[in-house]
């Protein structure tokens, strides 16, 4: 348990140093394995002995600094006081499809890991090199950029008539 606490203090220190996140939201606890941290509600602690998975993965330590998952950015991002980059709504699709975002120089943001958001929507974290934000969205979470829209009511009507859609 002491080793585990040591790891939790380490990731907490990294989050504080890079993003100014001083504390974990009230009612939640950070649990760390080797380099990954998960956030759980305090009530889940009663079931850790039987759990295969608890709470959500929020952060991991990388050679470049702390990386926040999409959920980590949503849960911890509102507490961050620095290195948060706001992107335009029209950049969200490209970001979620795995593209980097050109930002040029962003005042007050230091090169390194940054939390990426667009309005109230948190988009995870990326690596800001002073010019652009390099994409760190995992492949499993990437989306298709655009899709044709379907009129599902029309499909329904055709199926009712026994026609192909």
């Amino acid at each position, binding site marked *: 348990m002491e080793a585990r606490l040591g790891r939790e203090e380490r990731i907490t220190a990294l989050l504080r140093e890079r993003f100014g996140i001083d504390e974990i939201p009230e009612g939640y606890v950070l649990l760390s394995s080797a380099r990954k941290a998960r956030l759980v509600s305090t009530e*889940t602690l009663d079931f850790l002995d039987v759990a*295969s998975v608890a709470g959500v993965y929020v952060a991991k330590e990388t050679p470049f600094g702390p990386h926040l998952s999409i959920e980590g950015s*949503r849960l911890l991002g509102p507490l961050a006081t620095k290195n948060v980059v706001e992107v335009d709504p029209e950049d969200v699709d490209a970001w979620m499809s795995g593209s980097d975002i050109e930002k040029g120089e962003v005042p007050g943001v230091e090169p390194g890991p940054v939390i990426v958001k667009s309005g109230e929507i948190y988009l995870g974290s990326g690596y800001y090199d002073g010019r652009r934000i390099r994409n760190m969205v995992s492949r499993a979470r990437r989306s298709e950029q655009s899709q044709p*829209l379907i009129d599902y*009511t029309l499909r329904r009507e055709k199926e009712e008539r026994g026609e192909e859609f």
Partner: protein
Amino acid sequence: MERFPEGVLKPAFQERYRKLMGSEYELFLRFMATRPIPSIRLNPMKADPHRLRKRLESRGWRLEQIPWYDFGFWVLRGPERLGATPEHQLGLYYVQEAASMVPPVALDPQPRERVLDLAAAPGSKTTQMAEMMGWRGVILANDSNLGRANALSANIQRMGCPNVVVTVRDGRILPKVLSSRRFDRVLVDAPCSAVGEARRSWGALKRWSLRAVRRISRLQKSLALAGYRLLKKGGLMVYSTCTLDPEENEFVVLSLLREGAELVRPEILNLKARPGLTRWEDRELDPALSRALRIYPQDNDTQAFFVALIKKPLDAGGEC
């Protein structure tokens, strides 16, 4: 009948569901032969639902409110692959059939409670309940199958629920595994013959047999009893399936009534539902079963569902 490919509707199925549906049998088949309008559940914990709805509509989507759940919407017009959009991948919504949102609404879990979801994968109802609880308290989400539990974990992650723990156990042995730990609310959304899902594909109808129904009914009774044992005295439990066979529904609930459970009629606004059966094949059943809900495809243009809300009396004794 010509709406169904040959061999999909087995004679034994037709006989049984004709008996069940009575004069509405043809109407039932008409709905079973068409896919339902897809639906989504917005995640109020990740984005303001009003703004999110506007965002989707600004992309050309057309949404219609599902009347029994504030954050549920039918997608009248939207992308072909609802599970591949940026908003889906960000966990801003979950693709969930409209009737499948009913069991959590009936259970009504509260923040800071202990909730058990005994057969949780792939996690639509788990994540819905986690959001209803404001990401507070705890849900123990269990599934016996490792592959399905992995899908459950991925959905919990995507929807961002820090108040869920996943266990991979046979639900029937959970009372032993959890020892003296008990829950304020329990959801047993049991594996079933899934006739309700046949609106999406014919697989469930092709696999259907009375023998399989009877086999799964025994499993359902064991799971329901395990869930009931893990319920605190005074606690609430929902037993639900996405099928309509009495052996998988009323007969399972009957086995709980014999353990001293009470049935409560769920208050679900704006949902059309039929009372549970109190008579089946010349057999009179407990009149309390009329408090359960039978949701037929033709009632709300959804999947079929059965939902029973069960209360454990404060003076429940014995092993339960």
